[in-house]
């Protein structure tokens, strides 16, 4: 069949949905990768010597092939990933296993390939019997080693080289295939098998090659050389796109490239100060369409996902299923990085409940966790949805506007109820899911030591913390000048939070606007904040700044600011520090 015929018969814009395994957009021609099926039958051999030699030859040949994979991996990726293949190489040197295969040939007079099949399968079956997805992944890896040996016994080869730039489409891609393909110009990977946690997905992400996995039957649906769009953010394949869709994706690609260029140079540089102090930069996310940019900005996870935006978009509370869809989307796209989901933070200036009773002081009224505890069913549904979405083990949950330990205990009771319901229904979730609170009301700062019993992490929200500490409504124009982001009391309470949690296992991050303020960043680091959750578009700038400062100097700055008596002094100090760092930055360019 030639491709023109296909083109004419094809419907426009056929969409296949899979799992987004590695981000990026690509338009290009399909290359279908078929692996010859290897069949093994139980067979008796008359020549034991011949079989043993064939086994030895195949083992040596397989080692040589895998060494090539290890070398390629070392060249393109880091030590950790190379370790996976080095372990595979160790399997070929496993004396325990090899002597079992040899004995199988000698004692049962099996052919070499059948002996390999039988001995490997004992282990593979044990791995497959486990329900753990990572064990099934491991079984696939070991199966790949087995098939490699058998193919070499049969003296066959697999083709992994081609000339043009293509989108590789396959039923199954092993990690070794994925690496070997990179000797060509691969635009994207598409496969039927595999999930987000598969080694192939991990490799594709590390190689920066877009990938969509888990589309059943796709290798039979597509034809060589036909043009498709691969959307590695949404996990979509669009076959035979029409002009409108093509234009739409050209714009997406253009926007993405422009932003990526800015981000790329910085993304893979570890975020450390000049004196080697690691700072983790996370992203604040409001809407799901910010995800691609947050990922390419180099964010090491999501420090704050404001789930109330789902409520505002829909105008009412979401069902469990609707929420799971949104949270899973985040978990999958940021995997393996952590995603912090904050339960609905409604009330205050964010109220749209129908029978809402007008409060004279909404910011001191029914909002945050208070409101949620009064609607336990809403909170439980949200907890259930978050738990159901936690199977990748990269989601954690956080409650807003906590003012007392009692609120934490009550919320956790509902959280435990949600867990129990899921256990009874046999629905899996991350049993070790982390639970945290927002620190944004001054009262909780002075109860943090006691709170450590109930929480795994805190995130400091400076906007509300400032307004409650200074008793200033930041929405009120008349007193707006009194809302001081650098008020000495705020700097001191930020230091107090670090002190209260010193030497506990509770992780501290900061997600308020102050963390996205370039001038404030050195001060925050000096105060002891090592995890900043910031706006995605500012993240590269913040990272650039961090690369240019020293922890020792940030500490000195913090000490000076802690002694300051008014906001002006502090602003002057942070400005001076910032301009000095910027100056050094210019020199180094």
């Amino acid at each position: 069949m030639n491709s023109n015929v296909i083109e004419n018969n094809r419907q426009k814009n056929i969409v296949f949905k899979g799992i987004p395994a590695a981000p990026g957009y690509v338009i290009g021609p399909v290359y279908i990768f078929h692996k010859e099926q290897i069949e093994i039958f139980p067979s008796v051999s008359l020549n034991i010597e011949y079989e043993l030699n064939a086994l030895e030859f195949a083992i040596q040949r397989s080692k040589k092939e895998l060494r090539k994979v290890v070398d390629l991996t070392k060249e393109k990726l880091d030590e950790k990933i190379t370790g996976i293949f080095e372990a595979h190489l160790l399997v070929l040197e496993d004396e325990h296993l090899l002597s079992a295969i040899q004995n199988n040939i000698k004692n049962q007079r099996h052919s070499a390939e059948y002996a390999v099949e039988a001995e490997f399968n004992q282990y593979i079956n044990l791995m497959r019997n486990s329900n753990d997805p990572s064990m099934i992944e491991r079984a696939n890896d070991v199966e790949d080693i087995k098939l490699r040996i058998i193919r070499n016994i049969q003296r066959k080869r697999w083709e992994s080289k081609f000339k043009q730039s293509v989108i590789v489409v396959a039923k199954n891609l092993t990690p070794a295939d994925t690496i070997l393909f990179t000797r060509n110009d691969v635009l994207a990977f598409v496969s039927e098998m595999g999930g987000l946690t598969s080694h192939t997905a991990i490799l594709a992400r590390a190689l920066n090659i877009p990938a969509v996995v888990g589309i059943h039957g796709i290798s039979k649906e597509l034809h060589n050389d036909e043009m498709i769009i691969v959307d590695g953010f949404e996990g979509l394949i669009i076959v035979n796109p029409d002009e409108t869709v093509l234009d739409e994706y050209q714009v997406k690609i253009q926007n993405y490239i422009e932003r990526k260029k800015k981000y790329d140079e910085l993304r893979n540089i570890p975020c450390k100060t000049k004196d080697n102090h690691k700072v983790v930069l996370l992203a604040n996310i409001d809407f799901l369409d910010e995800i691609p940019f947050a990922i390419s900005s180099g964010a090491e996870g999501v420090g704050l996902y404001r789930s109330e935006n789902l409520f505002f978009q829909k105008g009412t509370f979401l069902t469990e299923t609707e929420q799971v869809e949104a949270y899973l989307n985040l978990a999958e796209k940021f995997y393996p990085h952590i995603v912090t989901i904050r339960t609905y933070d409604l009330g205050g200036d964010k109220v749209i409940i129908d029978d809402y009773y007008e409060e004279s002081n909404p910011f001191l009224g029914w909002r945050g966790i208070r409101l949620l505890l009064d609607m336990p069913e809403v909170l439980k549904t949200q907890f259930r949805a978050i738990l159901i979405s936690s199977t990748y083990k990269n989601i954690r949950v956080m409650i807003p506007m906590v003012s007392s330990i009692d609120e934490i205990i009550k919320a956790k009771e509902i959280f435990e109820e949600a867990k129990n319901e899921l256990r009874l229904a046999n629905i899996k979730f991350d049993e070790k899911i982390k639970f945290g609170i927002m620190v944004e009301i001054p009262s909780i700062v002075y109860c943090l030591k006691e709170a450590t019993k109930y929480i795994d992490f805190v995130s400091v929200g400076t906007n509300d913390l400032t307004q409650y500490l200074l008793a200033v409504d930041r929405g009120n124009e008349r007193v707006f000048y009194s809302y001081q982001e650098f008020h000495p009391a705020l700097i001191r309470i930020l230091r107090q939070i670090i002190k209260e949690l010193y030497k506990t296992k509770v992780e501290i991050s900061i997600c308020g606007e102050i963390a996205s303020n370039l001038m404030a960043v050195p001060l925050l680091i000096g105060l002891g904040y090592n995890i900043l959750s910031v706006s995605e578009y500012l993240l590269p700038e913040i990272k650039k700044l961090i690369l240019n400062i020293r922890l020792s100097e940030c500490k000195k700055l913090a000490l000076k600011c802690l002694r300051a008596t008014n906001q002006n002094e502090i602003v002057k100090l942070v400005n001076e520090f910032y301009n000095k760092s910027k100056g050094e930055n210019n020199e180094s360019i």
Partner: protein
Amino acid sequence: MVEKEVTILNRAGLHTRPAATIVKLASKFKSDFYIIQDNLVVNGKSIIGVMTLCAEQGSKLKLKFEGEDEEEAAKEIVEYFNRGFDEL
């Protein structure tokens, strides 16, 4: 014979990379080395054996060493477990 109980400390559990390191460490010693999880006993010097263990964070394993250098082997391997496979 030396028997020790260890707990998996790192978040990712006993995955492929630490499995390889355990086998490499064990093969430096002459002693036999077995890892026991519930009813499953695997040879700690066989990578494919160690890879069949499904040990996530928090799971407990028994280690058995037998041979002339069992004390030294136990010390080094237990230490590696206690360091959370250097992933903490």
